[in-house]
């Protein structure tokens, strides 16, 4: 599926960015963190700060791909009793004008039942990204998600061989999420040295926009990666800023936006 022929809000957003030569700023937040009320305000603040896409994390008890910051935010959200229904209610209440991608582990999605994708779409979600459902792991459930109303965004890792990158790209929509380095989510001082090579290999495998995440936290990193990729994903740094307050998360979003726009 080619990005240029799609009409979903996620693809339209990337097409519009490409036309104006801008890079996408994708910001992550955990639904229910710092608390359910502030979560809605945080979504709006990220949009106001200049985010192009918001990834809304569904809290999970055993987030094996996440580092300490997102683990903690998940735990806090669970302590507030946030489940799938509450996540969708927050998205609905925020009524954003930019696309929303759910970022989840598979188990909470399965537990939410077969109507979950439709319900998510009705609440204002446009895409879904599942950390622990790699391409080919479960063809039946992947087909179910792929056939639903949400764009199924897939992940590529630094360890992914190029033929598998092609396979992943064939099954993905919206954009491809490139994990910048080995490891779990969390802030890093430096950009991985093999990132340019990973991006170059992925370019040969797909026409979908490439957004790079894991370890991206500062304006300088945003610029360095923005020169190579179509967008960046910032997660732990936003979550940590949100712990200080909505204003801090907004300020970081503005800083990242400016950095990307000054490439």
């Amino acid at each position: 599926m080619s990005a240029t022929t799609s009409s979903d809000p996620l693809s339209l957003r990337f097409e519009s960015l490409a036309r104006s030569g801008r890079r996408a700023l994708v910001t992550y937040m955990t639904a229910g963190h710092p608390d359910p009320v502030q979560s809605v305000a945080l979504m709006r603040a990220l949009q106001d700060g200049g985010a192009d896409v918001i990834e809304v994390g569904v809290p999970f008890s055993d987030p094996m791909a996440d580092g300490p910051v997102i683990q903690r935010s998940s735990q806090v959200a669970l302590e507030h009793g946030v489940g799938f229904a509450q996540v969708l209610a927050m998205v609905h209440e925020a009524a954003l004008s930019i696309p929303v991608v759910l970022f989840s582990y598979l188990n909470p999605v399965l537990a939410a039942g077969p109507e979950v994708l439709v319900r998510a779409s009705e609440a204002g979600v446009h895409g879904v990204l599942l950390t622990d459902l790699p391409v080919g792991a479960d063809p039946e459930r992947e087909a179910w998600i792929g056939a639903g109303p949400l764009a199924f965004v897939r992940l590529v890792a630094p360890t992914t061989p190029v033929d598998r990158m092609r396979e992943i790209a064939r099954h993905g929509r919206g954009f491809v999420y490139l994990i910048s380095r080995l490891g779990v989510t969390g802030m890093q001082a430096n950009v991985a040295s093999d990132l340019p090579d990973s991006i170059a290999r992925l370019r040969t495998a797909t026409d979908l926009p490439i957004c790079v995440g894991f370890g991206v936290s500062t304006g300088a990193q945003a610029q360095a990666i923005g020169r190579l990729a179509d967008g960046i994903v910032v997660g732990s740094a936003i979550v940590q800023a949100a712990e200080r307050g909505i204003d801090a998360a907004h300020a970081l979003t503005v800083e990242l936006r400016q950095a990307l726009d000054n490439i």
Partner: protein
Amino acid sequence: MTAPALVRDRFGAFGGRYVPETLIPALDELEGALDAALLDPTFDAEWRDLLTHYVGRPSPLSDAPRLSELVGAPVWLKREDLNHTGAHKINNTVGQALLARRMGKSRIIAETGAGQHGVATATICARFGLECVVYMGEEDMRRQSLNVYRMQLMGATVVPVTSGTRTLKDATTEAIRDWVTNVRDSHYIIGSVVGPAPYPRMVREFQSVIGRESRAQMLERAGSLPRSVVACVGGGSNAMGIFAGFVDDAGVELVGVEAAGEGLESGRHSASLSRGTPGVLHGSLSYLLQDGQGQVYPAHSISAGLDYPGVGPEHSYLKDSGRAMYVAVDDGQALEGFAMLSRLEGIIPALETAHAVAWIAAQRGRWASNEPVLLCVSGRGDKDVSQVREMGILPL
């Protein structure tokens, strides 16, 4: 050993590879190395040599005259407690360490609950000169401080896990995080028949030596196959290992004994098969203790080795297909089983094993006097003695 209904990487509907993309190439590599090794006579010879001369296999099959009298049927004990390091866990770690060496991995990661798998991993890493990092819940480190010291003595680094429930579940999650970060030079030795494919099949393969030996020993010593094979189930590796020897013998009943903790109705137990629902944790789809939102419940058991909210996917398959039955025994009954095997047979079992002892002991009249019952003594109880003593449990 035939793999029942293994469709690609699944046991019926269960199993799979629900992991971050980063790990997929490593799992492909591992699967390739495993399949090549299983067909390679050199690997088989190396593995068997270590099992014989380092682990001390074959482990004996003991008769149990006084327990048999109590039960009303001949009970036979497969003595995995007599292996080097005192449990069945080493059968698997020897096999996986050999594989890691063939794959050129210099660093080993493991998770541990009771500490037996951590000790078995530290042991083989010392022997092979491999770096060894073991993740262990802080709560389990307290319960099993002797095993922590044993691992450290053998040169392993034991990393306390302070997230979540501070037990096996969280140690496993933390070990996976390490593996995602260090996947290029590290091999993750999972200690049970859980995790993403090919782990459940691989660990079953290495543990099936228990079942193969005991089948031959039963025919030789008892003159017949057992009527029932009974083993405790946390993740389920000793059970899967002994079941593997009998799964094709339709007349042999397979019984897995889970930990009912403070009672199945208390909500504080580890009985995933008895009370769980299918879900995805740590890379595979299997029965799981979870709430209606798909959040995993903390498990509970007096025994750290059974204190896990998931279970191996092949057990889920054996349950749904009806080939095996799963029952549960609570903390109090397990303590009785612990004392009973000690007093009746002079064998102090691990608290894990004690669950299976307790179930058998409560089944008087279930078997005819000529129907042998085979119990897997998965490990010895030395590690549990101080915990039981601190609880104020007096000898009978």
